[in-house]
């Protein structure tokens, strides 16, 4: 068990930068997820921690020790790959025990550890099978088993669920979380799926273009995104962004989205936003779940507005409503019984207490 530290970590492929000097502290026993779109440098970062990729500049520390030039086998890590990477000619038992056999661990100790891991993953009956006789989910379990038996300082997962179908992915997600609760090893997990990131992580690291956009618990990222990128990346469906201006009328601030729609700025934010009056290039951000149907009793920061619905998507427990404000499409989530119908006008409510104001130029949340 150990903490992992990245200091000013840089990776260039020839002249193309993949990772641009990131700093990150991962505590002992913590489950950290690196998430971002493809090409954001998350897998490269993981592979540098694993020692599969040379480090251009900066340091990787595992358990307080700089491991930049240490080969993977001496780093005491285990990795689970996207495509499982099981040894096809070995049985499940041999696959799981391969690392231990190379280390010349005693036979009965190997057997004990493999059986223990097999029990955790519920694959005890599969130990004598070959990988080709297993289903995708079973192969993924074996790949995890191979990591668990090594009892390493750090687990590394490289998009382990992206080859599974949707249902199995959700199942294995829970499985991975359970395993981590049982085994409690420091874990770095890479994915492009923000739901996976949110559900699994103690802390999520959002990466974009080789940089870290924000680090925080899933709830922090959801409620207080630092940048437009994080605000748009975390949450599904994604946050709505509408160009807006801030105007002052009789001492009170209003956010104007269109000729007809303007909302009063929540009381506690007027101080922060006063300097932005009349400024251009501002975006108003609000999550779909904070645009609701009209209701009897409105909370202090909830304000009604009326739009014409373009499309409605009933999901059962809720209905997605799509509408345009000044040519920008927005989506809200309303009660399925609220009578939303495409082509009709509908009264909706925006919860301004949950809004974000973004400077479109810098991408910062103000």
């Amino acid at each position, binding site marked *: 068990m150990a903490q992992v530290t990245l200091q000013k970590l840089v990776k260039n492929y020839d002249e193309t930068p993949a990772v641009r000097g990131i700093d990150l502290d991962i505590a002992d026993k913590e489950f950290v997820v690196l998430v971002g779109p493809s090409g954001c440098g998350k897998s490269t970062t993981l592979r540098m921690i694993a*020692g599969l990729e040379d480090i251009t500049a900066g340091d990787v520390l595992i358990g307080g020790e700089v491991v930049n030039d240490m080969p993977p*086998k001496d780093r005491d890590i285990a990795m689970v790959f996207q495509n*499982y990477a099981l040894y096809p*000619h070995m049985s499940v038992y041999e696959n799981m025990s*391969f690392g231990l056999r190379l280390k010349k661990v005693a036979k009965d100790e190997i057997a004990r550890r493999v059986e223990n891991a097999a029990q955790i993953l519920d694959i005890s009956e599969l130990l004598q099978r*070959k990988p080709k006789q297993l289903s995708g989910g079973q192969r993924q379990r074996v790949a995890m088993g191979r990591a668990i038996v090594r009892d390493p300082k750090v687990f590394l997962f490289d998009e382990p669920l992206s080859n599974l179908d949707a249902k199995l992915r959700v199942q294995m997600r829970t499985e991975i979380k359970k395993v981590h609760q049982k085994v409690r090893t420091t874990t770095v997990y890479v994915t492009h799926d923000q739901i996976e990131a949110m559900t699994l992580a103690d802390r999520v690291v959002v990466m974009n273009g080789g940089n870290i956009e924000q680090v925080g618990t899933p709830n922090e990222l959801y409620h207080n995104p630092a940048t437009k990128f994080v605000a748009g990346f975390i949450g599904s469906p994604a946050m709505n962004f509408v160009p807006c201006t801030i105007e002052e009328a009789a001492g009170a601030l209003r956010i104007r989205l269109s000729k007809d729609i303007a909302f009063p700025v929540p009381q506690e934010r007027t101080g922060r936003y006063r300097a932005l009056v009349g400024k251009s290039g501002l975006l108003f951000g609000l999550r779909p779940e904070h645009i609701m149907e009209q209701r009897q009793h409105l909370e202090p920061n909830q304000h009604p507005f009326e739009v014409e619905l373009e499309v409605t998507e009933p999901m059962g427990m809720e209905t997605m409503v799509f509408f345009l404000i000044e040519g920008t499409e927005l989506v809200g989530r309303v009660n399925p019984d609220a009578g939303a119908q495409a082509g009709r006008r509908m009264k909706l409510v925006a919860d301004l207490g949950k809004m974000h104001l973004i400077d479109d130029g810098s991408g910062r949340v103000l």
Partner: protein
Amino acid sequence: MSAIAAEIKAEVPAKRGSLKRSRRWALVWSYVFLIMFAVFFLMPPVYMLIMGLKSSGEIASMSNPWWVFHPTLDNFIALLTSEQYLTFFRNSAVISLAVVAITMLIAVPAAFSLGRMKFWGSTTLAAGVFLTYLVPDTLLFIPLFKIMAWVHDTTGIALLNHWWALIIIYPTLTVPFCTWIMIGYFQSIPKELDEAALIDGAGYIQMLTKIFLPVALPGIIAATIFAFTVSWSEFLYPMAFTVSADQLVLPVGIVTTLIKGDVYNWGQIMAACLMGAAPPLIIYAFLMDYYIAGLTAGATKG
């Protein structure tokens, strides 16, 4: 509504029928060409067998060449009791087995390093390996002859007219090609497999012996078969480099000892060729069981 349904119903079986028919025609034509091929390529060995079973008298009598009227095993017995033929056979066998061993010892590590460990100039080297295979042996045997003479002059080691010297020569034919096909095979193994092995604590040698060799077994067997066949059937080099009757290999031996002047001992020639063709055939049959594609099945997604 019901009319449309009826139309669709009527159409479906017709379509299925045409699909079946085109498939049947494809099968018919495949069989026609396969049978033509089989007949064409089996004719020589069958003819060898027929001739091998005839006595010299029957061959000379110009009777139906495709039938044996008085079958006899005399030719085979004569060859198998002839010291000379057995010497050819032994020379060929020892050379071929040794060449296969040497080839594999060189080609497998070479292919592993060229195909898997990226280093400066590795792609150029890999292309160079293949280029050497493209130089025909008819161009090489004179320079090789001179090299062997030079080795004799400088070191006193006589390579010419010694069958075992061919063990050193043949790998120049087999190593480049075997390396080339092994590079292709190693490159087809998913990269995550060696990364997993690296993380599991394997060094490069263990990665090669414990992961790559078993996984690339079909490729290794293909290379083995190739190396064996080339050394077994090589004619030009032994013809050029060996002279004495006890130093000859099978292909050269048959032609030089069973043709005496203008007397062709057809029965024995054919019997000798047939028996000479047997070992590669047996090796194919034996190794084909292991030569099954899809050994990497289950390694990764699929």
